[in-house]
């Protein structure tokens, strides 16, 4: 399962991740444990919903440029952090990692 990194630097199951938006492949079980354990990763579907452009992910891949980011990126960045919070709270409440759309 693909997760996306939204922090500054991390070692996730021994793999070093530094770039914002970098893909992290984990089993669902490992991903849940990592998110509950405060790793800054989002399920890919949640990350895609934030609608980052490839240009933004390139420009703001590292923490330095993100300190003075565009308003548009700032809004998406906040949305990603908020989505992570909601995923984590959902998991803590015994809910699923990903909520599928309505039927």
């Amino acid at each position, binding site marked *: 399962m693909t997760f996306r990194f939204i922090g500054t630097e991390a070692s996730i199951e021994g793999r070093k991740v530094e770039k914002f938006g970098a893909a992290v492949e984990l089993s669902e079980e490992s991903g849940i444990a990592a998110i509950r354990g405060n790793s800054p990763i989002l399920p890919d579907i949640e990350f895609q919903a934030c609608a980052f452009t490839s240009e933004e992910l390139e420009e703001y891949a590292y923490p330095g440029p993100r300190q003075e980011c565009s308003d548009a990126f700032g809004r998406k960045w906040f949305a990603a952090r908020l989505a992570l919070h909601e995923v984590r709270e959902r998991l803590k*409440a015994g809910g699923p990692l990903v909520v599928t759309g309505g039927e």
Partner: protein
Amino acid sequence: MAYPESRLQRGYAQLEMVQATVSTSVSTVTADSGTPFIAGMVGFQIRIDGAFYTIASFTSTTIVVLTTVIGTKNAVAAQVYYWGVIPHAAGVATVVAADCFLSTDLVLKPSRAIAQRPDKTGSYSQPVPGITKRGGTWRMRCTLAGSGSAGTAPDIDPFLVALFGKVATVVGGASVTYALEDGSPSLTLWDFNALAAADQQVAIGCIVTRATIEWGQDFAFIDLSGDAKYVLRSSAFSAEDATAKSGLTAFPTEPSTQTTAGTSVRGYKGTITLDAQTYTTFRSGRIEIAIARELDKAVWNSDYPGPVAGGLRSVSATLTHTDDDSANLLALKNKLLVGTPFDATIAIGATAGNIWTISLNDCIGEPADYGNGQTHRTADLAFSAYPTSATSKNEIALALT
């Protein structure tokens, strides 16, 4: 034979806590998952809506809190802090990769009293002493490292929860704030060495009695320490009693991978505000939180200490400042001289997701000391923080943004 290398030490921290929910029947609290409340758990503290309540009884899945005590609570989140039991499922430790934290020092030390038999023997030789009370101590030092994502707690979150007395308040996407509470959550701390066959350790029922945060150098550091129920070692596992094993049926191996997040905050970046004035001429500083929590050392029929009893808190700070003749600093020094309270905010770090803001209220201290040992005279400020009212618990708070 192989040699365990000090550099290959890894620490893991787990809160001795279960997330739960108050049911609509208003007298029972149900764990959010699993059957975590097990026989042998002692020292339950249950926190509901910011207050702690007494537990009447419990089963594997529910805790009963008297309705007359908690009043009407429907579907409210609760935290159940137990003490002295290693988080486990059917005897198997639940420590995972994401419990890992990085540290410069992690020291777990079991203790046991060696008591000399006091009887006279008719000679000057002394009989072999006996081992009586057991216990343990622990300490940990690491650089301050936020998760790198505002609104996500740092790897050392369990330590900070145990220090401040309750879980943090999280504002999604924005902040994680630790504020004081009179609870005393405890930790299980694991000290694994990468040499799997080497002796491994776990400290159970760890309470935090002292914390210091230092800044001004390349990195900012936090030191934490306290007492533990016991420190169990893998080499002695089979010889230990059930109380020492603390719920385990076997000593676990280290998780095969580790997960940590964040970078170390730069200890010379940030914003220091005293009495509503921001200063850019501070050189270094240190904040100390001491909490007189203690484990009950007089437990009948037990070699081990009992659950934690809370104690008074004290929060103090020392800051070294390049002296100047500004009206603001002169006014601040005068406040220290005459004992007028002021507020302080110390923000360490400048990168989003890794800014540690310490708020101190109603600070009162000693007259400033002048240091003449460097090119410019320094003004050394030392003060303690106090709550804003007799019933408040807000002498210090820590926010990560």
